[in-house]
Structures are given as structure tokens and as C-alpha cells.
């Protein structure tokens, strides 16, 4: 069924029903009484299909997908580690799954205990005083963290501090979150070692700096050796330090952002703590802060008194930033992961992730251009092939990897190197898998020289061949309705 290429709407047959609803318990309700402006004016256009139609459809399209469970998935900056099945087992447990967030507190003590304990574990792991698990994803966490920074300054009557310093190697979400939070971005250049340039930093420090956002290790997989001096410089200028936790996997159990001098951070549970990832997740981006900032964390907050867990809305600044408690079942999976590994094994995560990335770095640098020499942390960034005489670009290499049954690494990010290939193997891969990847990458380098046309045509073995990215970027069709409109307009 490799050629299956339908949308579920195309299976629709008017009047076909694939569900049965329970008898309505609202006996006195008459739909005609509904206020006219609440009534739907246009057709709903939902597919009318049988249960078997639905099942086959999604099974068939899932066969076209590629996930961590299909093969190696070294997507840099995304930490595509394997999510152990025990996480799912816990999350599908009825005792958690069937809870309602408005149930009486006394009936959900166990669920709150998990939630509270995870807050505490994240504090211990990161060295920050208190966590809120409410944000729905990493970028949401960034926004909430920046709102905390803003609230802190404004609470002191300092309305001038409205600028956030961000290095040019940062994740794109950093400047985006800053702008969404109503603050201004100041970009500073990296030095030739790929690190924050201290002189450039000093040059932009002033009394209108609200803070600085930093990823450590940065997006090049390089540890910021000057981190203590950076945090001191920003603090001395009256700013706060924000830690983008996207790359926390590298440091797990080794170094703590709180100890480096960071005041606020988010953690991507779906990266570091093995919860569902991609395709919308759902993710989770807990925000941690120092003691001084803890009063600005959002509501609701889960607290503990003796052995009793309770919920309070004591946050002074932000109010609520999520529906109820955020993605509870994601937090439960992260809790399961931490408890499964335990303290000793959690400390090995960053070490193995770093070892694997350096193993790849060393094995591939004979064929691929390594712009920042020396050791990396959890990921390694190459700048295309060493052999610059071919017309083969990073995009072609990435596409060719798919033919070998491996997911492509992150490409063209970070923007510092025009042909960037960013490889993050994570700690969950065996040496055999990593060796196979290295062999394939060397094969591709040879192909680039001897048969570049193979790479230009790749992928040839996937259900969908090379996509027209220009068309996709210019013609954004996100729904069946948009698609119908496009077809009609095209005539």
C-alpha cells in the first residue's frame, strides 16, 4: 500500500456513520431555541466514513511516516531519544487517564503527588528554586519565562528595561518569544570559536537591558566556557539570565543552570525527559526560577503541607497561562522516565549523549567540514562536505540519507554556517547503529564525488520523492477547505 495517497475527506460518503453516541441526557433541550448568532452558517464538511475506513486510512498513512521506532533519527537540537514504553503504560493507566482537573483535591492526591514531585525533581536537576509545569511547550515556556522577567523589573518600578540580548546562534524561538512578550531583541555575534563574544556582550550592556537568553551548550553543541563571567556581567548590569533548556540533555546530572547563574529557564520535557515529540506532541515546557522570582510563577500551583497536596492561585503577576495544569499526562511520562532511570543513571544520560556526538564528529571529519574543531557536547555541526568541488549541497546529503533508511539531521541551522548539518545522536543509540550511520555518511561523501546525480535525485526509495519546497512555501494549503479552494481557482 505504499502508493496510498488519499485524504480522509475523499473517502467520505454522505450519510455513512462510523460512530454511535450515547442517548442524550438533556431531554428538554430544543436545538431551535439556540440563539441565531450561535448557529453555524456554513457546512461542516466533516468526513462521513465507517470505523474501518478510518482505521485503514490512518494505518496506511502511518506506513509512510518515519519515526524513532523506524530507524536512526539524528535530528539536531531536537533530542529525538527513544521514549521507553513504560512511560506510555503509566500515561494510559485509568487511574490517571480518567481524572478531571476539577475533581475535589482530596480525590486526586496521588496525581498531585506525581506533579509536585516532578516540580521538585526538576528543581534538583536544574538548581533552580521552583518550577511551574503549566506551559504547554518549549516556546510557551520561553514566553512565560520572559513574562516573569518583565514582571520582576516592572514590580520594582523599572519600566525602562525592555531589551533582551540574544546571541546570533540562538534558536529562532528566542527572538520570537521576546517579540511576542513585547520586548526588543539585541543580537550579538559569536566569536570564531562559536561562543558568545564577551566584548560584543559588554558593548550592549546598559540600564535598558531586561536580560539575556542563552542556550548552553549552544546550538553548535559547544559549551560556553565563559558562562560564569557572562552571567556576572549581565547581573552587574541589572539584567536577568534566561536559560533556554532545549540543550539540557548534554548537561543532565553534570552541570546545573542554577549554579551557572541563570535566574529563569524552561525545560523541554519532550526532549530531555523522553515524552512524545513531533507532530504537535503534545509537548511540555516547565519554567523554573530562583527564589526571588518564584512569586511571579503562573497559577495554578501545586503545593504540599505535611502529607497533603493542594492547589493554590497565589501567583502575583501572570495569572493563568494554560488550561488547568498544562499537559498533565506528559508530566507523568517525564516523572516515569526520571523514576525509571534513577539518580545514578540520569547522570549517565549527558555523558553518553556527548560521547556519541564526539564519536561521530571524529569519524566524519575526514569527509565533512568541521568548522569548530575540538570537542563538542551532545551534538556536532558540520558545514557540508570537505570536498567543495562538487555541486552537492547539504540538502542533497540529507535527502540521500532517507534512501538509506535514516532520518535526516537538522540542516541549514544554525545560520552561522551556510551548509550546516547538525547531528544529535542522543544517548539511546547503540554503537552498531551509530557505526552504520557513519558508514552511510562516508558512502554518501564518495557518491557525491563519483555519482553526484544520485544525490541530486534522492530520495528515490521513499513513498514521497523530493518535495517542491518552493511551491510548499508559497502555496500554503493547511486544510481540505484550502485545498478545494486552490483546485477550484486553478480551474
Amino acid at each position: 500500500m505504499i502508493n496510498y495517497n488519499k485524504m480522509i475527506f475523499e473517502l467520505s460518503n454522505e450519510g455513512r456513520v462510523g460512530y454511535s453516541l450515547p442517548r442524550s441526557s438533556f431531554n428538554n433541550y430544543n436545538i431551535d431555541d439556540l440563539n441565531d448568532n450561535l448557529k453555524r452558517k456554513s457546512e461542516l464538511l466533516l468526513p462521513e466514513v465507517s470505523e474501518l475506513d478510518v482505521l485503514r486510512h490512518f494505518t496506511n498513512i502511518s506506513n509512510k511516516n518515519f519515526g524513532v521506532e523506524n530507524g536512526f533519527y539524528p535530528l539536531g537540537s531536537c533530542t529525538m531519544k527513544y521514549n521507553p514504553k513504560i512511560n506510555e503504560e503509566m500515561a494510559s493507566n485509568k487511574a490517571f487517564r480518567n481524572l478531571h482537573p476539577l475533581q475535589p483535591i482530596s480525590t486526586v492526591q496521588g496525581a498531585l503527588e506525581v506533579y509536585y514531585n516532578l516540580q521538585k525533581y526538576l528543581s534538583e536537576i536544574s538548581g533552580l528554586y521552583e518550577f511551574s509545569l503549566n506551559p504547554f511547550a518549549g516556546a510557551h515556556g520561553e514566553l512565560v519565562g520572559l513574562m516573569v522577567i518583565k514582571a520582576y523589573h516592572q514590580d520594582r518600578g523599572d519600566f525602562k528595561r525592555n531589551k533582551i540580548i540574544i546571541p546570533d546562534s540562538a534558536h529562532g524561538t528566542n527572538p520570537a518569544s521576546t517579540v511576542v512578550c513585547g520586548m526588543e531583541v539585541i543580537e550579538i555575534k559569536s566569536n570564531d570559536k562559536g561562543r558568545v563574544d564577551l566584548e560584543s556582550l559588554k558593548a550592549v550592556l546598559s540600564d535598558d537591558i531586561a536580560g539575556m537568553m542563552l542556550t548552553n551548550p549552544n546550538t553548535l553543541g559547544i559549551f560556553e566556557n565563559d558562562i560564569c563571567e557572562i552571567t556576572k556581567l549581565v547581573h552587574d548590569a541589572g539584567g536577568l539570565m534566561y536559560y533556554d533548556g532545549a540543550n539540557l540533555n548534554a548537561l543532565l546530572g553534570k552541570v546545573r543552570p542554577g549554579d551557572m547563574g541563570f535566574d529563569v529557564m524552561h525545560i523541554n520535557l519532550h526532549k530531555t525527559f523522553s515524552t512524545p515529540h513531533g507532530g504537535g506532541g503534545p509537548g511540555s515546557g516547565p519554567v523554573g526560577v530562583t527564589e526571588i522570582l518564584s512569586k511571579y510563577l503562573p497559577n495554578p500551583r501545586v503545593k504540599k503541607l505535611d502529607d497533603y497536596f493542594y492547589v493554590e492561585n497565589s501567583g502575583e503577576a501572570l495569572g493563568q497561562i494554560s488550561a488547568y495544569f498544562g499537559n498533565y499526562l506528559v508530566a507523568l511520562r517525564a516523572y516515569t522516565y526520571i523514576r525509571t532511570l534513577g539518580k545514578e543513571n540520569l547522570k549517565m544520560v549527558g555523558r553518553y549523549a556527548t560521547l556519541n556526538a564526539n564519536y561521530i564528529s571524529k569519524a566524519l571529519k575526514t569527509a565533512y567540514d568541521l568548522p569548530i574543531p575540538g570537542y563538542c557536547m551532545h551534538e556536532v555541526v558540520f558545514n557540508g562536505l570537505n570536498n567543495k568541488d562538487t555541486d552537492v549541497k547539504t540538502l542533497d546529503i540529507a535527502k540521500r540519507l532517507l534512501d538509506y533508511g535514516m532520518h535526516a539531521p537538522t540542516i541549514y541551522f544554525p545560520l552561522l554556517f551556510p551548509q550546516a548539518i547538525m547531528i544529535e545522536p542522543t544517548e539511546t543509540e547503540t554503537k552498531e547503529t551509530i557505526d552504520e550511520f557513519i558508514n552511510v555518511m562516508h558512502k554518501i561523501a564518495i557518491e557525491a564525488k563519483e555519482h553526484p546525480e544520485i544525490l541530486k535525485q534522492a530520495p528515490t526509495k521513499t513513498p514521497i520523492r523530493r518535495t517542491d519546497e518552493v511551491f510548499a512555501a508559497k502555496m500554503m494549503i493547511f486544510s481540505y477547505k484550502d485545498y478545494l479552494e486552490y483546485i477550484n481557482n486553478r480551474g
Partner: protein
Amino acid sequence: MSKLVEGLYYSKSHEWVKPLEDDVVLIGITDFAQSELGDVVFVDLPEVGNTISQEDEFGAVESVKAASDLIAPVTGEILEVNEELVGEPELLNKDPYENWLLKVKLENPDELGNLLNSEEYAEFIK
């Protein structure tokens, strides 16, 4: 090898400036810039009547790879904007020297002295 046109002025942020008459210039992006960007899918340009100032950003070019700021190589008032690029941004890939972005009246023609000539630019992108 990136194409260059002699007689143009080049900035280190990969824009070119072509002097016309009466201190009026055309501004575009270089062949090197378009080839590094890859397929361009969107061009964001300022409005006629606005001013741009040397080394400040005045718009953006978005490709399938990344979005890049456009940095003004000179200071002056915008006389004309190449509207064709809005509908057909791929023209920048086809011929970056023919498809200019802005027509600008220079405020200070001496600023051209801060830019590179084609030989210096060729050396710069090597």
C-alpha cells in the same frame, strides 16, 4: 563561482548598488547572496517615500532555508520598489543583478566610498 558585475558597488552584507543619474541608485542582492539563500520564496520590502540608512535593516528575504535581513548599503529616500518581486520572488534566483529591489535617491553620495568594488567583493566572498 558567483557572478559579479563590474562597475557596481558591493556591501559586506551582500547587496549591490548601481548608480544611475542624479544620485539615484538601484539596490539589489548579489549572486553570492541568492546562491547562499537558495530558492527565494518571499521578499519583504519597505514602502516608497520611506528612507533607508546605511547599515540598517530595511526588509527581508525568505528562502526555503532561512529568512535573512536586508541591510541598506546606502542612505536615502525610496523612489521606487520592484513590485514584481512580490508575486515572483524567484526572479532573485534567476537574475539577481537584473531584478533590483529598490530605487533610491542618495542623501550622501560619499557613502558609496564605504562600499567594495567588484574585485574587492570577489576577494571578500572567496
